[in-house]
């Protein structure tokens, strides 16, 4: 039950802060919507629909994951830095639930909220343009969930680094490009990238949406790889975070003021 209350409180807090920083949130939504519209317009306007269609769908899937991963990572990095400065991080650290549980709840909440924004915008764009992508919810949902687990794992790493390293903002800028690499490059081009976080998941989603793979067509091996990848990165991320938290408690870095 404690978990439920913790999660509940954090979803509300993330939602309220999104609402209070409304100009930022609106700017984000408008940008995202505009880019979606542009991509969909590409399907209709430019040349040979057969190949163009595929390319654009490809770009949309990449873009969704890229956007989602950037939002999650930057949000957690920014929050940690900010809260260390404000002193609230120390308050969170004093909770008998443990900071990692609170941050799990935070990461889960922000992922959930950004996902809602994306889904609404995606549907909105499809409605405005009349172009419908092949969205097989039943197949995509489990892949999506496992992919998000590994994303949250990486989020934990970012959170840990943000605690012990004050100049993390500069790194977060560079991170955008790394995330672009992870979400844009298909496995067929670089098969070894299957070991990196969320690459496999994005690849599978692309296959479902573009090649129209159904749940039955995805092999057990694919799911196994995906599941293993998710668990591995979640545990690794959590480990890195707990390690950084300990360093911070040794050196007195929980408050930066």
């Amino acid at each position, binding site marked *: *039950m404690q978990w439920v*209350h913790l999660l509940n*409180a*954090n979803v509300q807090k993330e939602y309220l802060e999104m609402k209070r920083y409304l100009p930022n949130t609106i700017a984000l939504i408008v940008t995202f919507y505009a880019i979606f519209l542009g991509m969909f317009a590409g399907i209709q306007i430019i040349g040979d629909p057969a190949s163009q269609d595929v390319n654009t769908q490809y770009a949309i899937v990449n873009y969704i994951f890229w956007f989602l991963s950037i939002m999650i990572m930057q949000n957690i990095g920014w929050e940690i830095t900010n809260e260390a400065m404000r002193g609230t991080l120390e308050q969170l650290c*004093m*909770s*008998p639930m443990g900071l990692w549980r609170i941050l799990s709840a935070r990461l889960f909440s922000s992922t959930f909220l950004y996902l809602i924004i994306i889904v609404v915008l995606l549907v909105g764009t499809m409605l405005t343009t009349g172009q419908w992508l092949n969205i097989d919810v039943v197949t995509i949902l489990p892949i999506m969930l496992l992919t998000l687990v590994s994303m949250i794992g990486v989020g934990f790493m970012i959170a840990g680094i943000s605690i012990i390293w004050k100049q993390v903002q500069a790194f977060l800028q560079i991170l955008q490009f790394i995330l672009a690499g992870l979400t844009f490059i298909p496995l067929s081009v670089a098969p070894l990238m299957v070991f990196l976080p969320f690459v496999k998941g994005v690849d599978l989603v692309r296959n479902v949406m573009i090649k129209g793979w159904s749940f039955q067509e995805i092999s057990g091996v694919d799911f196994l790889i995906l599941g293993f990848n998710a668990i591995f990165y979640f545990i690794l991320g959590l480990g890195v975070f707990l390690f950084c938290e300990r360093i911070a408690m040794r050196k007195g870095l929980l408050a930066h003021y």
Partner: protein
Amino acid sequence: METIIEVKHLKKAYKKRKSKEYVHAVNDVSFQVKKGEIVGLLGPNGAGKTTTIKMICGLLIPDSGEIYVNGVDNQKKRLEALKHISAVLEGNRNLYWRLTVRENLNYFAGNRGVSKKEAAERIEDLLEKFNLKEKENELVNRLSRGMQQKLAIMVAMLADSEIILLDEPTLGLDVETGYEVRELLRDFVSNYNRTIIISSHDMDVIQDLCDRTVIINEGKVVTNDKIENLLQLFQVRAYTITLGGLLSDEQQRQLLQKFPQFEYTPDTVESTLKVNLLRSEEIYDLFDVLKKENTPVEAIDRATVNFENVFMKIVKGEFNHAMGPSS
């Protein structure tokens, strides 16, 4: 009374920036706090008060030493120990500025695994007590500094833990708000049986609220005693003597030898002489010096001491507590 906090031989050093030197912020501190006690943690700037408090709160890992909270080792079972503790740390910024008063309270309750419903009654009660009911829907960044500080204290009280640590709860508040916070704390202390550790530079707050003080200086405990004992100790030993004339140079020289810290204010009609005696018998030595030249003594008063003076004397090392009669 049973011991609820036990601090044993705590040490903590910070590495100085860009050098290999260390600052020994806390250097072998030990003390105990009994259930229901209110202890003042005093010391000059940089004495190690905040560092000690943060180690008790599990925010800093000591280099060595142990802390038991309600019998739980806070390094071996950190989260278990945290169940018994809440704290207001230095500064008033430890709140979410873009959330309202109530939203902050709800959020912090949730983070301890408490539902909104369960917390509702306590929140209502606290809003009432702290006189923030009309401000419950105000964003924290629109509150005055005093209200923010009150909210920070409310957050700590909301946790319903047996132990509360307050690091400079009245710092930066105007006299009136400082007084209000003090009243609230006192009220809280008498109505709820909590164990409290307060660090403060405001001696009035300490004198008003605390049963006992632990004074630390340069990372070491220099005094650990009841406030009334400390006051009494100084009361007995501090005398103001009113003289009906002046002291000769020879007398002053002799006094200086015996009482290096005596204060003499010469005046042809009424001079005053202030001395601190280490032992009460020393008053005879003083009189011997006066008698030599038959200096008229108009009055002898015990100087009134306030806690601030006592504190200053202890910190400056002008007073060795081990010599005191109460030890």
